[in-house]
Protein backbone atom coordinates (compact mmCIF):
# COMPACT_ATOMS: atom_id res chain seq x y z
CA UNK A 1 0.00 0.00 0.00
CA UNK A 2 2.87 2.31 0.88
CA UNK A 3 4.40 1.90 -2.58
CA UNK A 4 0.99 2.62 -4.14
CA UNK A 5 0.55 5.70 -1.96
CA UNK A 6 3.97 6.98 -2.98
CA UNK A 7 3.28 6.39 -6.70
CA UNK A 8 0.04 8.31 -6.36
CA UNK A 9 2.07 11.48 -6.54
CA UNK A 10 3.68 10.41 -9.79
CA UNK A 11 2.97 13.03 -12.46
CA UNK A 12 1.81 10.32 -14.84
CA UNK A 13 -0.89 9.12 -12.41
CA UNK A 14 -3.73 11.38 -13.70
CA UNK A 15 -3.02 10.37 -17.30
CA UNK A 16 -3.03 6.70 -16.32
CA UNK A 17 -6.29 7.10 -14.41
CA UNK A 18 -7.89 8.80 -17.40
CA UNK A 19 -6.69 6.04 -19.71
CA UNK A 20 -8.15 3.39 -17.38
CA UNK A 21 -11.47 5.22 -17.25
CA UNK A 22 -11.62 5.47 -21.05
CA UNK A 23 -10.79 1.78 -21.43
CA UNK A 24 -13.54 0.91 -18.98
CA UNK A 25 -16.12 2.97 -20.89
CA UNK A 26 -15.02 1.59 -24.23
CA UNK A 27 -15.07 -1.97 -22.93
CA UNK A 28 -18.52 -1.57 -21.42
CA UNK A 29 -19.79 -0.15 -24.71
CA UNK A 30 -18.39 -3.04 -26.73
CA UNK A 31 -20.03 -5.54 -24.38
CA UNK A 32 -23.39 -3.76 -24.29
CA UNK A 33 -23.92 -3.26 -28.01
CA UNK A 34 -25.92 -6.20 -29.33
CA UNK A 35 -25.13 -7.83 -32.66
CA UNK A 36 -27.18 -7.15 -35.77
CA UNK A 37 -29.66 -9.31 -37.60
CA UNK A 38 -30.07 -10.00 -41.30
CA UNK A 39 -33.02 -9.61 -43.60
CA UNK A 40 -35.37 -12.29 -44.85
CA UNK A 41 -37.79 -12.22 -47.74
CA UNK A 42 -41.20 -13.72 -48.14
CA UNK A 43 -42.54 -15.94 -50.85
CA UNK A 44 -45.40 -18.34 -51.35
CA UNK A 45 -44.94 -21.92 -50.13
CA UNK A 46 -45.44 -25.06 -52.20
CA UNK A 47 -45.87 -28.69 -51.16
CA UNK A 48 -42.25 -29.15 -52.15
CA UNK A 49 -41.18 -26.46 -49.68
CA UNK A 50 -43.11 -28.17 -46.90
CA UNK A 51 -41.38 -31.48 -47.66
CA UNK A 52 -37.89 -29.92 -47.76
CA UNK A 53 -38.75 -27.91 -44.65
CA UNK A 54 -39.68 -31.07 -42.81
CA UNK A 55 -36.31 -32.61 -43.68
CA UNK A 56 -34.52 -29.48 -42.46
CA UNK A 57 -36.61 -29.57 -39.31
CA UNK A 58 -35.80 -33.21 -38.59
CA UNK A 59 -32.09 -32.55 -39.09
CA UNK A 60 -31.78 -29.29 -37.15
CA UNK A 61 -34.68 -28.70 -34.79
CA UNK A 62 -36.22 -32.05 -33.82
CA UNK A 63 -33.63 -32.75 -31.11
CA UNK A 64 -35.19 -30.11 -28.86
CA UNK A 65 -38.65 -29.50 -30.32
CA UNK A 66 -39.45 -33.19 -30.83
CA UNK A 67 -39.84 -35.24 -34.02
CA UNK A 68 -43.45 -34.13 -34.40
CA UNK A 69 -42.66 -30.53 -33.33
CA UNK A 70 -44.96 -30.96 -30.35
CA UNK A 71 -42.30 -29.86 -27.89
CA UNK A 72 -40.21 -31.54 -25.21
CA UNK A 73 -39.26 -30.71 -21.65
CA UNK A 74 -36.53 -28.37 -22.95
CA UNK A 75 -38.34 -26.61 -25.81
CA UNK A 76 -41.90 -25.47 -26.57
CA UNK A 77 -44.33 -27.00 -29.06
CA UNK A 78 -44.27 -25.38 -32.50
CA UNK A 79 -47.75 -26.42 -33.53
CA UNK A 80 -49.74 -23.27 -34.23
CA UNK A 81 -46.86 -20.80 -33.82
CA UNK A 82 -47.10 -19.96 -37.52
CA UNK A 83 -44.63 -19.03 -40.23
CA UNK A 84 -44.04 -15.61 -38.64
CA UNK A 85 -42.47 -17.16 -35.52
CA UNK A 86 -40.13 -19.34 -37.60
CA UNK A 87 -39.13 -16.47 -39.85
CA UNK A 88 -38.33 -14.35 -36.79
CA UNK A 89 -36.52 -16.97 -34.70
CA UNK A 90 -34.48 -18.51 -37.53
CA UNK A 91 -34.19 -15.33 -39.63
CA UNK A 92 -32.52 -13.40 -36.80
CA UNK A 93 -30.25 -16.33 -35.93
CA UNK A 94 -31.90 -16.90 -32.53
CA UNK A 95 -32.69 -20.46 -33.59
CA UNK A 96 -31.12 -22.95 -33.72
CA UNK A 97 -30.09 -22.11 -30.17
CA UNK A 98 -26.35 -22.34 -29.66
CA UNK A 99 -26.30 -22.96 -25.93
CA UNK A 100 -28.68 -23.09 -23.01
CA UNK A 101 -28.93 -19.70 -21.35
CA UNK A 102 -31.31 -17.10 -19.95
CA UNK A 103 -32.37 -16.25 -23.50
CA UNK A 104 -31.42 -16.99 -27.10
CA UNK A 105 -29.61 -13.93 -28.50
CA UNK A 106 -29.58 -12.99 -32.18
CA UNK A 107 -26.45 -14.22 -33.94
CA UNK A 108 -25.26 -14.90 -37.51
CA UNK A 109 -28.04 -16.63 -39.45
CA UNK A 110 -27.43 -20.34 -40.08
CA UNK A 111 -29.83 -20.93 -42.96
CA UNK A 112 -30.29 -19.08 -46.23
CA UNK A 113 -33.54 -17.30 -47.11
CA UNK A 114 -34.89 -20.25 -49.09
CA UNK A 115 -34.26 -22.73 -46.29
CA UNK A 116 -35.90 -20.38 -43.78
CA UNK A 117 -39.02 -20.10 -45.94
CA UNK A 118 -39.09 -23.90 -46.33
CA UNK A 119 -38.84 -24.35 -42.54
CA UNK A 120 -41.55 -21.72 -42.09
CA UNK A 121 -43.76 -23.50 -44.63
CA UNK A 122 -43.37 -26.78 -42.76
CA UNK A 123 -44.19 -25.30 -39.34
CA UNK A 124 -47.12 -23.35 -40.81
CA UNK A 125 -48.49 -26.61 -42.22
CA UNK A 126 -48.67 -28.08 -38.69
CA UNK A 127 -51.33 -25.70 -37.43
CA UNK A 128 -52.91 -22.32 -38.08
CA UNK A 129 -50.69 -19.46 -36.88
CA UNK A 130 -49.62 -15.93 -37.78
CA UNK A 131 -48.25 -15.62 -41.32
CA UNK A 132 -45.22 -13.63 -42.44
CA UNK A 133 -46.33 -10.02 -43.13
CA UNK A 134 -46.12 -8.61 -46.66
CA UNK A 135 -43.67 -5.86 -47.68
CA UNK A 136 -46.53 -3.38 -47.73
CA UNK A 137 -47.57 -4.17 -44.14
CA UNK A 138 -44.12 -3.29 -42.76
CA UNK A 139 -43.16 -0.36 -45.01
CA UNK A 140 -41.98 2.40 -42.62
CA UNK A 141 -42.65 5.12 -45.21
CA UNK A 142 -46.38 4.26 -45.08
CA UNK A 143 -46.63 4.52 -41.28
CA UNK A 144 -47.22 7.54 -39.04
CA UNK A 145 -44.17 7.88 -36.76
CA UNK A 146 -45.89 10.37 -34.42
CA UNK A 147 -48.72 7.94 -33.66
CA UNK A 148 -46.10 5.18 -33.53
CA UNK A 149 -44.23 7.08 -30.83
CA UNK A 150 -47.33 7.34 -28.61
CA UNK A 151 -47.96 3.60 -29.00
CA UNK A 152 -44.28 2.71 -28.52
CA UNK A 153 -44.09 4.78 -25.31
CA UNK A 154 -47.00 2.91 -23.74
CA UNK A 155 -46.44 -0.60 -25.06
CA UNK A 156 -42.73 -1.03 -25.78
CA UNK A 157 -40.57 1.68 -24.19
CA UNK A 158 -40.50 0.19 -20.68
CA UNK A 159 -38.42 -2.75 -21.90
CA UNK A 160 -36.90 -1.58 -25.20
CA UNK A 161 -35.97 1.99 -23.98
CA UNK A 162 -37.67 5.20 -25.14
CA UNK A 163 -35.85 5.19 -28.49
CA UNK A 164 -35.57 1.41 -28.91
CA UNK A 165 -31.97 1.10 -27.68
CA UNK A 166 -32.85 -1.95 -25.57
CA UNK A 167 -32.63 -2.63 -21.84
CA UNK A 168 -32.13 -5.20 -19.10
CA UNK A 169 -34.72 -7.64 -17.74
CA UNK A 170 -34.31 -10.04 -14.82
CA UNK A 171 -31.66 -12.75 -14.40
CA UNK A 172 -29.61 -12.16 -17.55
CA UNK A 173 -32.54 -11.67 -19.89
CA UNK A 174 -32.72 -8.47 -21.89
CA UNK A 175 -34.86 -6.61 -24.41
CA UNK A 176 -32.65 -6.15 -27.49
CA UNK A 177 -31.83 -2.98 -29.40
CA UNK A 178 -34.24 -2.52 -32.33
CA UNK A 179 -32.27 -0.21 -34.62
CA UNK A 180 -30.75 -2.93 -36.80
CA UNK A 181 -33.80 -5.21 -36.73
CA UNK A 182 -35.61 -5.39 -40.07
CA UNK A 183 -39.22 -4.07 -40.20
CA UNK A 184 -40.47 -7.60 -40.99
CA UNK A 185 -38.78 -9.05 -37.92
CA UNK A 186 -40.14 -6.24 -35.70
CA UNK A 187 -43.65 -6.95 -37.00
CA UNK A 188 -43.24 -10.69 -36.43
CA UNK A 189 -41.95 -10.15 -32.90
CA UNK A 190 -45.04 -8.09 -31.98
CA UNK A 191 -47.29 -10.72 -33.53
CA UNK A 192 -45.70 -13.83 -32.00
CA UNK A 193 -44.17 -12.63 -28.71
CA UNK A 194 -40.82 -14.41 -28.82
CA UNK A 195 -39.23 -15.56 -25.55
CA UNK A 196 -39.89 -13.05 -22.72
CA UNK A 197 -41.80 -10.66 -24.97
CA UNK A 198 -45.59 -10.69 -24.65
CA UNK A 199 -47.84 -10.97 -27.71
CA UNK A 200 -49.44 -7.86 -29.23
CA UNK A 201 -52.22 -9.31 -31.36
CA UNK A 202 -54.08 -7.44 -34.09
CA UNK A 203 -56.88 -6.37 -31.72
CA UNK A 204 -54.38 -4.86 -29.27
CA UNK A 205 -52.25 -3.13 -31.91
CA UNK A 206 -53.91 -3.13 -35.32
CA UNK A 207 -51.73 -3.90 -38.39
CA UNK A 208 -51.74 -0.19 -39.17
CA UNK A 209 -50.60 0.67 -35.63
CA UNK A 210 -47.83 -1.92 -35.89
CA UNK A 211 -46.66 -0.19 -39.06
CA UNK A 212 -46.73 3.16 -37.23
CA UNK A 213 -44.48 1.70 -34.54
CA UNK A 214 -42.10 0.42 -37.22
CA UNK A 215 -42.08 3.91 -38.76
CA UNK A 216 -41.14 5.38 -35.34
CA UNK A 217 -38.31 2.88 -34.81
CA UNK A 218 -37.11 3.59 -38.34
CA UNK A 219 -36.56 7.23 -37.35
CA UNK A 220 -34.37 6.33 -34.35
CA UNK A 221 -30.77 5.41 -33.88
CA UNK A 222 -29.23 7.13 -36.88
CA UNK A 223 -27.81 10.53 -35.97
CA UNK A 224 -27.74 11.95 -32.47
CA UNK A 225 -28.04 15.77 -32.53
CA UNK A 226 -25.96 16.00 -29.35
CA UNK A 227 -22.89 14.23 -30.73
CA UNK A 228 -21.95 11.10 -28.75
CA UNK A 229 -25.12 9.28 -27.66
CA UNK A 230 -23.24 6.76 -25.44
CA UNK A 231 -25.52 3.98 -26.65
CA UNK A 232 -28.76 5.86 -25.75
CA UNK A 233 -29.17 3.56 -22.77
CA UNK A 234 -29.80 6.36 -20.30
CA UNK A 235 -28.35 6.89 -16.84
CA UNK A 236 -26.00 3.88 -16.85
CA UNK A 237 -23.59 4.99 -19.55
CA UNK A 238 -24.18 8.68 -18.92
CA UNK A 239 -23.47 8.23 -15.21
CA UNK A 240 -20.38 6.15 -15.94
CA UNK A 241 -19.14 8.88 -18.24
CA UNK A 242 -19.88 11.75 -15.86
CA UNK A 243 -18.63 10.10 -12.68
CA UNK A 244 -15.61 8.24 -14.01
CA UNK A 245 -14.39 10.20 -17.01
CA UNK A 246 -15.70 13.66 -16.09
CA UNK A 247 -14.80 13.59 -12.41
CA UNK A 248 -11.54 11.75 -13.17
CA UNK A 249 -10.57 14.54 -15.54
CA UNK A 250 -11.42 17.21 -12.94
CA UNK A 251 -9.41 15.41 -10.26
CA UNK A 252 -6.53 14.98 -12.69
CA UNK A 253 -6.52 18.69 -13.52
CA UNK A 254 -6.69 19.64 -9.83
CA UNK A 255 -3.71 17.41 -9.08
CA UNK A 256 -1.80 18.95 -11.98
CA UNK A 257 -2.56 22.50 -10.84
CA UNK A 258 -1.46 21.70 -7.28
CA UNK A 259 1.71 19.80 -8.20
CA UNK A 260 5.05 21.57 -8.14
CA UNK A 261 6.93 21.96 -11.36
CA UNK A 262 10.23 20.08 -11.58
Amino acid sequence: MKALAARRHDRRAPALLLLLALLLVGGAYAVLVPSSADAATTKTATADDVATGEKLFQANCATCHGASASGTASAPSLIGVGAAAVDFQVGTGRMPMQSDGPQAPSKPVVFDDEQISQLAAYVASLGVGPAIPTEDMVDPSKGDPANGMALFRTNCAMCHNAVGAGGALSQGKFAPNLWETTPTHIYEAMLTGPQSMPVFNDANLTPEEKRNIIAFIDEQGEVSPGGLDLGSIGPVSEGLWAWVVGLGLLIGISVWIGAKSS
Partner: protein
Amino acid sequence: MSTHDPHSDVVVHGEGELPDRFDDPGLHEHKPRQADVDPKVAKRVERQVLFLFTLSILGTIGVVWAYFALPPGETPDSMRTSNVVLGVCLALSLLGIGIGGNHYIKVLMSNREYVEERHEQRSSDETREIAVQMLKDGAQDSGLSRRGALVGAGLTALALFPLAIVVPLIGNVGEDWNVRKFKHTMWKKGTRLATDPQGRPIKASDVTIGDVWHVIPDGLNELEHGKLDEKAKAIVLLVRLDPRDLKSDQSPAGETWGYDGIVAYSKVCTHVGCPVALYEQQTHHLLCPCHQSTFDVADACKVVFGPAKRPLPQLPITVDDEGYLVAQSDFHEPVGPSFWERATK
Protein backbone atom coordinates in the same frame (compact mmCIF):
# COMPACT_ATOMS: atom_id res chain seq x y z
CA MET B 1 17.36 12.28 22.69
CA SER B 2 15.94 13.61 19.45
CA THR B 3 15.91 12.34 15.90
CA HIS B 4 15.11 14.15 12.69
CA ASP B 5 12.96 12.45 10.11
CA PRO B 6 14.08 13.70 6.72
CA HIS B 7 10.58 13.22 5.26
CA SER B 8 8.87 15.61 7.65
CA ASP B 9 9.79 18.92 9.15
CA VAL B 10 8.65 18.04 12.65
CA VAL B 11 11.36 17.48 15.21
CA VAL B 12 10.52 14.29 17.08
CA HIS B 13 11.61 14.11 20.70
CA GLY B 14 11.77 11.09 22.94
CA GLU B 15 8.61 9.96 24.73
CA GLY B 16 7.43 12.17 27.59
CA GLU B 17 9.72 14.98 26.53
CA LEU B 18 7.31 17.25 24.64
CA PRO B 19 8.76 20.75 24.42
CA ASP B 20 6.72 23.76 25.50
CA ARG B 21 6.84 25.18 22.00
CA PHE B 22 7.68 23.51 18.74
CA ASP B 23 10.54 25.08 16.86
CA ASP B 24 9.58 27.06 13.80
CA PRO B 25 10.62 24.70 11.01
CA GLY B 26 11.17 27.65 8.67
CA LEU B 27 10.78 27.56 4.93
CA HIS B 28 11.46 24.69 2.59
CA GLU B 29 14.81 24.77 0.95
CA HIS B 30 14.27 26.60 -2.31
CA LYS B 31 14.93 24.31 -5.25
CA PRO B 32 15.33 26.02 -8.60
CA ARG B 33 13.21 24.59 -11.41
CA GLN B 34 14.62 23.44 -14.71
CA ALA B 35 13.26 26.56 -16.37
CA ASP B 36 15.05 28.71 -13.77
CA VAL B 37 18.49 27.33 -14.59
CA ASP B 38 18.21 26.36 -18.25
CA PRO B 39 17.24 29.25 -20.59
CA LYS B 40 16.47 26.71 -23.33
CA VAL B 41 13.76 25.09 -21.19
CA ALA B 42 12.38 28.51 -20.30
CA LYS B 43 12.22 29.40 -23.99
CA ARG B 44 10.48 26.13 -24.81
CA VAL B 45 7.87 26.60 -22.09
CA GLU B 46 7.30 30.15 -23.27
CA ARG B 47 6.53 28.81 -26.73
CA GLN B 48 4.16 26.21 -25.26
CA VAL B 49 2.24 28.88 -23.34
CA LEU B 50 2.17 31.06 -26.44
CA PHE B 51 0.75 28.12 -28.40
CA LEU B 52 -1.95 27.49 -25.78
CA PHE B 53 -3.03 31.13 -25.71
CA THR B 54 -3.11 31.21 -29.51
CA LEU B 55 -5.24 28.06 -29.45
CA SER B 56 -7.66 29.85 -27.12
CA ILE B 57 -7.82 32.86 -29.46
CA LEU B 58 -8.52 30.56 -32.42
CA GLY B 59 -11.13 28.71 -30.34
CA THR B 60 -12.97 31.94 -29.57
CA ILE B 61 -12.86 32.99 -33.21
CA GLY B 62 -14.10 29.49 -34.06
CA VAL B 63 -17.09 29.83 -31.69
CA VAL B 64 -18.10 33.16 -33.23
CA TRP B 65 -17.58 31.77 -36.75
CA ALA B 66 -19.55 28.59 -36.03
CA TYR B 67 -22.37 30.56 -34.43
CA PHE B 68 -22.99 32.34 -37.72
CA ALA B 69 -21.73 29.83 -40.28
CA LEU B 70 -23.18 26.60 -38.80
CA PRO B 71 -26.69 27.27 -37.44
CA PRO B 72 -28.37 24.19 -35.87
CA GLY B 73 -30.90 24.05 -38.72
CA GLU B 74 -33.68 21.50 -38.99
CA THR B 75 -31.98 18.12 -39.49
CA PRO B 76 -30.22 16.00 -36.84
CA ASP B 77 -27.08 16.12 -39.01
CA SER B 78 -26.83 19.91 -39.04
CA MET B 79 -27.69 20.05 -35.31
CA ARG B 80 -24.92 17.61 -34.54
CA THR B 81 -22.37 19.51 -36.65
CA SER B 82 -23.33 22.80 -35.01
CA ASN B 83 -23.21 21.33 -31.48
CA VAL B 84 -19.93 19.53 -31.95
CA VAL B 85 -18.09 22.46 -33.59
CA LEU B 86 -19.41 24.97 -31.03
CA GLY B 87 -18.50 22.63 -28.16
CA VAL B 88 -15.01 21.83 -29.38
CA CYS B 89 -14.19 25.51 -30.09
CA LEU B 90 -15.56 26.61 -26.70
CA ALA B 91 -13.50 23.92 -24.98
CA LEU B 92 -10.34 25.05 -26.83
CA SER B 93 -11.04 28.68 -26.00
CA LEU B 94 -11.42 28.05 -22.24
CA LEU B 95 -8.91 25.23 -21.83
CA GLY B 96 -6.31 27.25 -23.77
CA ILE B 97 -6.52 30.10 -21.25
CA GLY B 98 -6.73 27.78 -18.24
CA ILE B 99 -3.95 25.37 -19.14
CA GLY B 100 -1.73 28.10 -20.60
CA GLY B 101 -2.11 30.34 -17.56
CA ASN B 102 -1.44 27.51 -15.13
CA HIS B 103 1.51 26.26 -17.13
CA TYR B 104 3.03 29.76 -17.06
CA ILE B 105 2.44 30.23 -13.34
CA LYS B 106 3.84 26.81 -12.45
CA VAL B 107 6.91 26.87 -14.64
CA LEU B 108 7.96 30.42 -15.52
CA MET B 109 6.62 32.81 -12.91
CA SER B 110 8.91 33.42 -9.92
CA ASN B 111 8.27 30.80 -7.24
CA ARG B 112 10.59 32.21 -4.59
CA GLU B 113 9.01 32.06 -1.13
CA TYR B 114 8.53 35.35 0.76
CA VAL B 115 7.43 35.90 4.34
CA GLU B 116 5.41 38.93 5.35
CA GLU B 117 5.18 39.30 9.12
CA ARG B 118 1.73 40.24 10.43
CA HIS B 119 1.44 43.12 12.89
CA GLU B 120 0.13 42.29 16.35
CA GLN B 121 -3.66 41.88 16.36
CA ARG B 122 -4.34 43.31 19.80
CA SER B 123 -4.79 47.08 19.87
CA SER B 124 -3.03 49.15 22.51
CA ASP B 125 -4.77 49.61 25.88
CA GLU B 126 -5.30 53.29 25.16
CA THR B 127 -7.15 52.64 21.86
CA ARG B 128 -9.29 49.96 23.51
CA GLU B 129 -10.38 52.32 26.29
CA ILE B 130 -11.33 55.02 23.78
CA ALA B 131 -13.40 52.51 21.76
CA VAL B 132 -15.34 51.32 24.85
CA GLN B 133 -16.04 54.90 25.87
CA MET B 134 -17.32 55.73 22.37
CA LEU B 135 -19.78 52.82 22.47
CA LYS B 136 -21.05 53.85 25.88
CA ASP B 137 -21.51 57.46 24.76
CA GLY B 138 -23.37 56.30 21.65
CA ALA B 139 -25.80 54.14 23.66
CA GLN B 140 -26.45 57.04 26.00
CA ASP B 141 -27.02 59.42 23.08
CA SER B 142 -29.57 57.16 21.34
CA GLY B 143 -31.81 57.27 24.38
CA LEU B 144 -33.02 53.69 23.84
CA SER B 145 -32.27 52.68 27.39
CA ARG B 146 -35.08 55.00 28.53
CA ARG B 147 -37.59 53.76 25.91
CA GLY B 148 -38.01 50.03 26.65
CA ALA B 149 -41.36 49.69 24.83
CA LEU B 150 -39.79 50.93 21.62
CA VAL B 151 -37.01 48.30 21.82
CA GLY B 152 -39.52 45.53 22.47
CA ALA B 153 -41.77 46.56 19.59
CA GLY B 154 -38.82 46.90 17.21
CA LEU B 155 -37.45 43.46 18.07
CA THR B 156 -40.91 41.88 17.72
CA ALA B 157 -41.37 43.48 14.29
CA LEU B 158 -38.02 42.07 13.15
CA ALA B 159 -38.75 38.61 14.55
CA LEU B 160 -42.20 38.41 12.91
CA PHE B 161 -41.19 39.68 9.49
CA PRO B 162 -39.90 36.28 8.10
CA LEU B 163 -43.45 34.87 8.48
CA ALA B 164 -44.50 37.12 5.58
CA ILE B 165 -42.21 35.06 3.34
CA VAL B 166 -42.32 31.63 4.98
CA VAL B 167 -46.11 31.20 5.31
CA PRO B 168 -47.01 31.72 1.61
CA LEU B 169 -43.97 29.65 0.61
CA ILE B 170 -44.95 26.61 2.65
CA GLY B 171 -48.64 27.12 1.88
CA ASN B 172 -47.92 26.73 -1.84
CA VAL B 173 -46.00 23.47 -1.49
CA GLY B 174 -47.91 20.55 -3.01
CA GLU B 175 -50.84 22.74 -4.11
CA ASP B 176 -53.48 20.25 -3.05
CA TRP B 177 -53.63 18.69 0.39
CA ASN B 178 -56.76 16.63 -0.17
CA VAL B 179 -55.36 13.12 0.34
CA ARG B 180 -58.78 11.49 -0.09
CA LYS B 181 -58.19 11.71 -3.83
CA PHE B 182 -55.51 9.00 -3.52
CA LYS B 183 -58.08 6.50 -2.28
CA HIS B 184 -60.31 6.49 -5.36
CA THR B 185 -59.76 6.20 -9.10
CA MET B 186 -61.94 6.65 -12.16
CA TRP B 187 -62.85 2.95 -12.20
CA LYS B 188 -66.40 2.11 -11.11
CA LYS B 189 -68.91 -0.64 -11.69
CA GLY B 190 -69.44 -1.12 -15.42
CA THR B 191 -66.54 1.08 -16.70
CA ARG B 192 -65.20 -0.57 -19.83
CA LEU B 193 -61.51 -1.38 -20.10
CA ALA B 194 -59.96 0.48 -23.07
CA THR B 195 -56.56 0.41 -24.72
CA ASP B 196 -53.93 3.00 -23.79
CA PRO B 197 -53.51 5.42 -25.56
CA GLN B 198 -56.10 4.74 -28.30
CA GLY B 199 -59.10 4.34 -25.95
CA ARG B 200 -60.63 1.36 -27.82
CA PRO B 201 -62.85 -0.81 -25.56
CA ILE B 202 -61.45 -4.35 -25.22
CA LYS B 203 -63.47 -7.48 -25.96
CA ALA B 204 -62.65 -10.49 -23.80
CA SER B 205 -62.54 -12.65 -26.94
CA ASP B 206 -59.75 -10.47 -28.39
CA VAL B 207 -57.41 -11.15 -25.49
CA THR B 208 -55.24 -14.18 -26.25
CA ILE B 209 -52.93 -16.11 -23.94
CA GLY B 210 -49.51 -14.45 -23.64
CA ASP B 211 -50.90 -11.02 -24.46
CA VAL B 212 -50.24 -7.91 -22.48
CA TRP B 213 -52.62 -4.95 -22.76
CA HIS B 214 -52.02 -1.49 -21.36
CA VAL B 215 -55.38 -0.29 -20.18
CA ILE B 216 -57.13 2.97 -19.29
CA PRO B 217 -60.76 3.44 -18.23
CA ASP B 218 -63.14 4.07 -21.14
CA GLY B 219 -63.94 7.77 -21.25
CA LEU B 220 -60.61 8.95 -19.85
CA ASN B 221 -59.55 10.48 -23.17
CA GLU B 222 -62.77 12.55 -23.21
CA LEU B 223 -62.14 14.14 -19.79
CA GLU B 224 -61.79 17.92 -19.96
CA HIS B 225 -59.93 18.50 -16.71
CA GLY B 226 -57.38 16.49 -14.75
CA LYS B 227 -56.95 13.86 -17.45
CA LEU B 228 -53.33 13.14 -16.55
CA ASP B 229 -54.08 13.07 -12.82
CA GLU B 230 -56.83 10.52 -13.37
CA LYS B 231 -54.70 8.50 -15.76
CA ALA B 232 -51.82 8.40 -13.29
CA LYS B 233 -54.06 6.60 -10.78
CA ALA B 234 -56.18 4.47 -13.11
CA ILE B 235 -53.64 2.81 -15.42
CA VAL B 236 -53.98 -0.96 -15.48
CA LEU B 237 -52.10 -3.87 -17.00
CA LEU B 238 -54.21 -6.69 -18.42
CA VAL B 239 -52.88 -10.14 -19.23
CA ARG B 240 -54.41 -13.48 -20.12
CA LEU B 241 -52.73 -16.53 -18.66
CA ASP B 242 -53.28 -20.17 -19.33
CA PRO B 243 -55.77 -21.03 -16.53
CA ARG B 244 -53.36 -23.84 -15.57
CA ASP B 245 -50.61 -21.28 -14.82
CA LEU B 246 -52.90 -18.93 -12.92
CA LYS B 247 -52.66 -19.59 -9.19
CA SER B 248 -55.27 -17.04 -8.22
CA ASP B 249 -57.79 -14.81 -9.94
CA GLN B 250 -59.70 -14.27 -6.75
CA SER B 251 -59.87 -11.57 -4.15
CA PRO B 252 -58.52 -12.29 -0.67
CA ALA B 253 -62.16 -12.80 0.37
CA GLY B 254 -62.73 -15.39 -2.36
CA GLU B 255 -64.76 -13.45 -4.95
CA THR B 256 -63.80 -14.01 -8.59
CA TRP B 257 -61.92 -10.91 -9.78
CA GLY B 258 -60.66 -12.27 -13.10
CA TYR B 259 -62.45 -13.57 -16.19
CA ASP B 260 -61.42 -16.84 -17.83
CA GLY B 261 -57.69 -16.39 -17.17
CA ILE B 262 -57.79 -12.64 -17.79
CA VAL B 263 -56.56 -10.60 -14.84
CA ALA B 264 -56.05 -6.85 -14.43
CA TYR B 265 -53.68 -5.16 -11.99
CA SER B 266 -52.84 -1.56 -11.17
CA LYS B 267 -49.73 -0.44 -13.03
CA VAL B 268 -48.62 1.91 -10.25
CA CYS B 269 -45.82 0.39 -8.17
CA THR B 270 -46.57 0.07 -4.45
CA HIS B 271 -43.00 1.15 -3.69
CA VAL B 272 -42.73 4.73 -5.02
CA GLY B 273 -45.29 4.76 -7.83
CA CYS B 274 -43.38 4.12 -11.07
CA PRO B 275 -45.39 2.42 -13.85
CA VAL B 276 -44.73 -1.32 -13.48
CA ALA B 277 -44.89 -2.56 -17.04
CA LEU B 278 -41.96 -4.80 -17.92
CA TYR B 279 -43.84 -8.05 -18.37
CA GLU B 280 -41.94 -11.27 -18.99
CA GLN B 281 -44.31 -13.57 -20.79
CA GLN B 282 -42.57 -16.83 -19.89
CA THR B 283 -42.08 -16.25 -16.15
CA HIS B 284 -45.29 -14.18 -15.70
CA HIS B 285 -43.13 -11.72 -13.78
CA LEU B 286 -43.85 -8.02 -13.89
CA LEU B 287 -40.87 -5.74 -13.26
CA CYS B 288 -40.71 -2.15 -12.09
CA PRO B 289 -38.10 -0.23 -14.10
CA CYS B 290 -37.14 2.08 -11.23
CA HIS B 291 -36.01 -0.25 -8.42
CA GLN B 292 -36.51 -3.72 -9.89
CA SER B 293 -39.46 -4.70 -7.71
CA THR B 294 -40.84 -7.89 -9.27
CA PHE B 295 -44.45 -9.05 -9.01
CA ASP B 296 -45.80 -12.49 -9.92
CA VAL B 297 -48.88 -11.94 -12.10
CA ALA B 298 -49.81 -15.63 -11.86
CA ASP B 299 -49.98 -15.37 -8.08
CA ALA B 300 -52.04 -12.27 -7.24
CA CYS B 301 -49.10 -9.96 -8.13
CA LYS B 302 -47.30 -10.82 -4.92
CA VAL B 303 -43.84 -9.29 -4.51
CA VAL B 304 -41.14 -11.82 -5.41
CA PHE B 305 -38.20 -9.43 -5.42
CA GLY B 306 -37.28 -5.82 -4.70
CA PRO B 307 -38.20 -3.04 -2.29
CA ALA B 308 -42.00 -3.03 -2.80
CA LYS B 309 -43.86 -4.21 0.29
CA ARG B 310 -47.41 -4.85 -1.01
CA PRO B 311 -48.83 -6.73 -4.02
CA LEU B 312 -50.19 -4.58 -6.84
CA PRO B 313 -53.90 -3.88 -6.23
CA GLN B 314 -56.15 -6.01 -8.47
CA LEU B 315 -58.96 -4.48 -10.51
CA PRO B 316 -62.01 -6.76 -10.30
CA ILE B 317 -63.21 -7.37 -13.86
CA THR B 318 -65.97 -9.22 -15.68
CA VAL B 319 -67.70 -8.94 -19.09
CA ASP B 320 -70.84 -7.04 -20.06
CA ASP B 321 -73.68 -8.17 -22.38
CA GLU B 322 -71.74 -7.21 -25.50
CA GLY B 323 -68.65 -9.16 -24.48
CA TYR B 324 -66.55 -6.15 -23.49
CA LEU B 325 -64.37 -6.31 -20.38
CA VAL B 326 -65.74 -4.07 -17.62
CA ALA B 327 -64.72 -3.26 -14.06
CA GLN B 328 -66.76 -4.79 -11.24
CA SER B 329 -65.89 -1.82 -9.03
CA ASP B 330 -63.05 0.50 -8.17
CA PHE B 331 -59.86 -0.98 -6.68
CA HIS B 332 -60.52 -2.29 -3.18
CA GLU B 333 -57.49 -0.47 -1.73
CA PRO B 334 -55.62 2.75 -2.58
CA VAL B 335 -53.25 2.25 -5.53
CA GLY B 336 -49.59 3.22 -5.52
CA PRO B 337 -47.13 3.89 -2.73
CA SER B 338 -47.91 4.30 0.95
CA PHE B 339 -48.95 7.65 2.34
CA TRP B 340 -49.54 8.83 5.88
CA GLU B 341 -53.35 8.60 5.92
CA ARG B 342 -53.55 5.40 3.79
CA ALA B 343 -54.88 3.15 6.56
CA THR B 344 -57.58 5.55 7.81
CA LYS B 345 -61.02 5.40 6.26
